[in-house]
């Protein structure tokens, strides 16, 4: 037997309002009352009145009936409109009375923190979510997803107890990240699928969002994967977007904060520069920017930012003590607070500790492979008064394994012949901790041993490129090609021809062979196109390979020429300084991450496992465990959904406190939103931009019925006015 499923399921979101339908009797009552309430007049010409009555009584009755019908209909339609009628769904076998899964997806991108009134968009989303739950029918089930990046399924298993579910909504806190639409839709689809197996055949997914262009723009919602997923989802569920965004929202944000140098010491000033961007359409003038170091207000400045533009603010500061310092930049408060702060964790050192491994010690001064390098690292070493930022230490090749490399920020290898597997492990540990390695080659170098131990052939990958054959031609002098100074390493030489970078004479070098699909980048090349300096980020650290040597100790036996006279060239000192800066850059990057990125650190291999306690910006204290490995131990902490400073305490045997800064990705600071019409057609939308509207009616699928009814009321009001005028006056 075939039973047709109803095509329309009709209901009212605000059933109580239907009680006002009784008011529809008012026009009839007024009519009857008017009949009882009249004035009396003695009338002589009654004969003519009676004649008129006889001829017109039928017409008058029809007119009165018509007016009564119109007036009653006005009240009925008005009551129906405010009762928010809705059509459940067209075309799908939706049956009223069946259990429905109400899947609430709340946008968790930090633009939802925009607070144009005393309520933020996120607060309003929670209120509306609770209202949807309140207005649900008996037996409906609920699920809750926070559209974060990645999305967080708060209640995945359909909940049937509204009170508990509302508590979950209450407990939601807005994270400081973006929102991943594609991944969220995947979660929604998964929950909808699972609900079907539990007998919840009707699914309504409500997306409570500000429709930020970053999340909902065509480049995310229009991709093939999202389109396909939406089509599949629309077969299963009705998708409703509740638009909480305001069309024009002003916002000023700090989009960047960085030190001018990759490493900071107590010996020199450091430039702290920040970018302040105006994402709104109005100019922002005289906005206060404050610099706080370790919570103390140090300096302030004022900025003017034109709409859509960015202003740069720079503060010079010298840290007076080594250790971890937290720099905070604070902007005048506006309606979106979260991007008005930016933090920077700055590990300040007394000196940068650099180890130089000398592969070819000299017998007299400046004849060893590392001598020129050590001098270039600390040019003021001869001056007792001067305090250099870098403290180089030269050791022999054999002393390397005895050193605790965790004490060093960067290690230079100068004409070192070969590496053992245990040395390679040490170097890998250093890279994992964010340290830097710089390899200068030379006549001692055994290319095949390098390639075997350091380029991934024996599992460990230390070098960014393999060593090829030695290139030399008699009396031929190779010159550098700066490759348009694109790489930050050589960028400083641009426009400074007198530094001699381009005239640096090189007679002999190793041909470096880059892996075909690696991340290694050529920073400097030879004129023939062979790489001269190759660098790559490996682990958190950086490995740099220079194709030639850094001293005059390697002599070509045929021509008696050194491999290069670069150490004596004016370009050498700045080049070495830039190499150090590039090599240790990873240390600062490790301490400063974006919301959603994990915190972590690699430590030297240790036998015991220290306790690690993390204090979040919200004041929560959490403990993480360290993973032990033969070469290095590592801890990670992934729950960085909140921006701010995370304090890390490492217990014994390390006994150290560190600060990690987690900042927002300011893409979300751009509050531009898409129009509801730009949404994929699978969505229906509700406008809820007025965040003050506390008594807004429940959200139901947009059927447009109440609007139609209101238009009907308007039409009837005009009709009534016209009819009353027509019956009463126009024809008189």
């Amino acid at each position, binding site marked *: 037997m075939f039973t047709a499923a109803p095509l329309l399921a009709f209901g009212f979101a605000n059933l109580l309002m239907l009680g006002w339908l009784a008011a529809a009797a008012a026009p009839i009552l007024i009519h009857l009352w008017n009949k009882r309430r009249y004035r009396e007049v*003695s*009338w*002589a010409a009654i004969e*003519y009145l009676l*004649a008129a009555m006889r001829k017109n009584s039928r017409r008058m009755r029809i007119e*009165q009936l018509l007016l009564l019908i119109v007036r009653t209909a006005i009240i009925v339609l008005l009551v129906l409109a405010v009762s928010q009628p809705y059509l459940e769904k067209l075309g799908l076998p939706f049956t009223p009375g069946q259990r429905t899964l109400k899947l609430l997806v709340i946008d968790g991108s930090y633009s939802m923190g925009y607070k144009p009134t005393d309520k933020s968009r996120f607060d309003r989303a929670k209120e509306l979510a609770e209202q949807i739950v309140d207005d649900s029918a008996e037996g409906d089930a609920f699920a809750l997803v926070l559209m974060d990046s990645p999305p967080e399924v708060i209640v995945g298993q359909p909940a049937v107890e509204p009170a508990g579910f509302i508590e979950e909504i209450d407990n939601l806190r807005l994270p400081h990240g973006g929102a991943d639409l594609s991944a969220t839709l995947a979660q929604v689809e998964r929950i909808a699928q699972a609900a079907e197996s539990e007998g919840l055949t009707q699914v309504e997914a409500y997306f409570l969002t500000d429709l930020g262009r970053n999340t909902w723009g065509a480049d995310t919602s229009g991709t093939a994967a999202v389109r396909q997923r939406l089509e599949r989802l629309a077969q299963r569920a009705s998708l409703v977007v509740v638009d909480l965004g305001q069309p024009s929202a002003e916002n000023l944000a700090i989009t960047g904060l960085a030190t001018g140098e990759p490493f900071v010491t107590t010996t020199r000033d450091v430039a702290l520069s920040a970018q302040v961007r105006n994402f709104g359409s109005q100019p922002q003038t005289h906005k206060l920017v404050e610099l706080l170091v370790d919570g103390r207000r140090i300096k302030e400045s004022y900025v003017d930012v034109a709409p859509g533009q960015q202003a740069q603010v720079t503060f010079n500061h010298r840290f007076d003590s080594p250790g971890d310092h937290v720099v905070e930049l604070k902007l005048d408060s506006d309606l979106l607070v979260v991007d008005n702060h930016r933090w920077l964790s700055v590990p300040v050192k007394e000196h940068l500790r650099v180890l130089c491994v000398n592969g070819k010690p000299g017998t007299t001064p400046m004849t060893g492979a590392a001598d020129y390098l050590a001098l270039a690292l600390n040019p003021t070493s001869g001056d007792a008064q001067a305090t250099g930022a870098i403290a180089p230490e030269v050791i022999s090749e054999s002393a390397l394994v005895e050193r605790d490399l965790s004490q060093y920020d960067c290690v230079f290898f100068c004409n070192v012949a070969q590496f053992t597997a245990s040395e390679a492990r040490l170097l890998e540990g250093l890279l994992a901790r964010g340290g830097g390695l710089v390899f200068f080659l030379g006549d001692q170098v055994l290319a095949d041993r390098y390639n075997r131990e350091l380029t991934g052939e024996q599992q460990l990958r230390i070098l960014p490129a393999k060593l090829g054959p030695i290139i030399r031609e008699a009396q031929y002098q190779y010159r550098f090609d700066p490759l348009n100074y694109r790489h930050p390493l050589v960028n400083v030489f641009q426009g400074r021809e007198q530094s001699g970078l381009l005239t640096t004479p090189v007679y002999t070098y190793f041909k470096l062979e880059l892996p075909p699909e690696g991340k290694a980048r050529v920073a400097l090349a030879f004129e023939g196109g062979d790489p001269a300096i190759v660098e790559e980020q490996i682990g958190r650290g950086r490995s740099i390979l220079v194709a030639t040597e850094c001293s005059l100790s390697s002599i070509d036996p045929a021509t008696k020429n050194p491999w290069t006279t670069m150490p004596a060239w004016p370009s050498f000192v700045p080049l070495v300084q830039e190499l150090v800066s590039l090599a240790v850059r990873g240390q600062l990057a490790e301490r400063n991450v974006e919301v959603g990125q994990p915190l972590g650190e690699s430590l030297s291999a240790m036998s015991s496992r220290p306790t690690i306690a993390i204090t979040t910006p919200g004041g929560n204290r959490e403990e993480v465990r360290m993973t032990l490995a033969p070469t290095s131990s590592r801890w990670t902490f992934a729950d960085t959904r909140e921006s701010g400073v995370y304090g890390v305490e490492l217990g014994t045997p390390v006994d150290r406190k560190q600060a990690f800064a987690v900042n927002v990705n300011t893409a979300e600071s751009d509050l531009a939103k898409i129009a509801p019409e730009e949404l994929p057609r699978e969505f229906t939308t509700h406008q809820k931009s007025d965040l003050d509207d506390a008594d807004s009616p429940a959200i139901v699928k947009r059927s447009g019925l109440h609007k139609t009814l209101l238009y009907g009321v308007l039409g009837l009001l005009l009709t009534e006015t016209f009819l009353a005028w027509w019956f009463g006056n126009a024809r008189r």
Partner: protein
Amino acid sequence: MDANPKYLDPQTLAKLQGLELRARSIVEGYVSGVHRSPYHGFSIEFAEHREYSPGDDLRYVDWKVFGKSDKFYLKQYEEETNLVVYLVLDTSESMRYKSDDAALSKLEYAQCIAASLAYLVLQQQDSVGLVTFDSEVRSLVRPSSNPSHLKQLLHVMETSEPHRKTRTGPIFHDLAERLKRRGLVVILSDLFDDVGTMLAGLKHFRHRRHDIVMFHVLDPAELDFPFKQTTLFKGLEQLPDVLTDPRSLRQAYLEEFGKFLNSVRKGCRDQRADYLQLRTDQSLDVALSSYVAARMARMA
């Protein structure tokens, strides 16, 4: 003519007590501008001389006396006029009606007109009689030209109480038979009766060679029907009551009433009767003078 217009306004007249006073006010208010009496007759038997006053017909000036005394005197005759005016006043219940906007009821207004005409006619030394009627003739005062006759007429008018339904047709037939002497029949009524029988009565008057003047007295509310709210119209003259929303019925009523007026007007024209519609909010001197002027023009 407008020497004393404020006394001719119905609102002002309503404040004056007594028909005589009202009539005097009306007539003296307008008569000073009229140079020639519309009513004039002749007689054979001389009675006395009277000093000329403006408006008197120069034909009756005694030129001999003028030759002797250099003063104008008119010759007065025993039987001064051949004009007899019959004032036929409707005192039916419907004449009692007075709307809120009107100062006088239709009957009061008609009485004023009748009294004024009587005063005027007696001033002209003509005879005037009075008939009051509703469904039957209530009183009949024989015509006389004696100035003291006015008091009797006014008394009859003042004591006439409106009641009963109008029955114009039989009354007019009856009067046509009873008023033997040919004269001017002045009818003052709202004519709320069957128009056909009323016109048949008029025809009878005409047959008896009477001149007819029809003063159709109506209340402004009857002509405009200004009512807005639901009203119970209580029928006068034993007609049923009507409860209705007057706004929705106004057009139809005005159409019906218009038909009635047209049929009356046309019927009067056919009977060569002078027809004059009077609104009770209309100034009485305007009402009178417009008629008198029109009649004078026609007789000239």
